[in-house]
């Protein structure tokens, strides 16, 4: 009888932890509702990258067979490969699905333009711009998947 009582007393930790979890969730939800999701930098970064590439293609003759685009457009290859996606097509009807682009870095360009995925933070935020240079049409898709990082300091 005594042992059973002790066991019952020890079990009270579960409702207690559950209560704390609910309080914690309540506070977190309150803070989140007040301050929102925060600052999403990706759409701005994607547009900036697209602008830089567009200006660069219009101003310079780029050999897309090599990696010279990074040097000519003053882009850091390691950072672009880590945080961004780029696809450039020439005279293409559909650059997103094109299997023979002039240049690409990264993958999952279809994810950029899924209608249902616009609210999903897991997908990159992208920009698509078409430009004309001489008689050719270039389509430039850029995307950013870089999330703001919090570090201990």
């Amino acid at each position, binding site marked *: 009888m005594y042992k059973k009582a*002790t066991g019952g*007393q*020890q079990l009270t*930790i579960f409702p*207690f*932890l559950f209560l*704390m979890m609910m*309080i*914690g969730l309540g*506070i*977190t939800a309150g*803070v989140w509702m*007040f*301050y929102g999701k*925060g*600052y999403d*930098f990706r759409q*701005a*970064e994607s547009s*900036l*990258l697209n602008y*830089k590439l567009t200006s660069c293609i219009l101003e310079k003759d780029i050999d897309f067979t090599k990696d010279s685009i*990074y040097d000519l457009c*003053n*882009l*850091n290859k*390691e*950072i*672009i490969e*880590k*945080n*961004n996606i780029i696809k450039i097509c020439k005279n293409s009807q559909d650059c997103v699905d094109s299997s023979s682009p002039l240049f690409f870095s990264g993958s999952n360009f279809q994810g950029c333009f899924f209608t249902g995925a616009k609210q999903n933070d897991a997908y990159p935020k992208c920009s698509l711009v078409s430009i004309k240079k001489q008689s050719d049409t270039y389509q430039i898709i850029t995307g950013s998947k*870089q999330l*703001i*990082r*919090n*570090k*201990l*300091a």
Partner: protein
Amino acid sequence: MNKKAAIGDIIMDNILFLIIVAIFLVFMLYIVLQYQSSAVVWEKFYTGEITKVIDFSIPGDSVCLNVHKATEIAKSNNVLSDSEIFTINNAQKEICTKLSKGQQTCLNYFNDVDTIDWKLKLSEGKDSSGASTINILCFNIIKTQKKVEEIV
């Protein structure tokens, strides 16, 4: 004797509960206070804006930004020194902002440039009306040093 042992167990259980509650409260208080001073929100804002400026710049540019709000928040949160508020890592192309103790917010910039001569100038800038002084952050943009070394 048995009763005493039972009382001891109850006290131990309650102390355990109290310790868990104390840890939980300290943790929640830390999160809420960080948001209350808006440090987290402003850290993200300043890191993002500085990154955008660097991405948009070209070697030879000199940049000065109004960071008055950031310095005020950092001071109210006792961030130890001015040089801790904004830090740059040219090798990793990373900007970090720290407006509260214990954490900083970081982003990478894709522009292949280095930023040098970071200076936080206190009360050296003017606000839009020109009436009062503000704190500004100034830096210069140069070609990335790695490439210069490779060429040499």
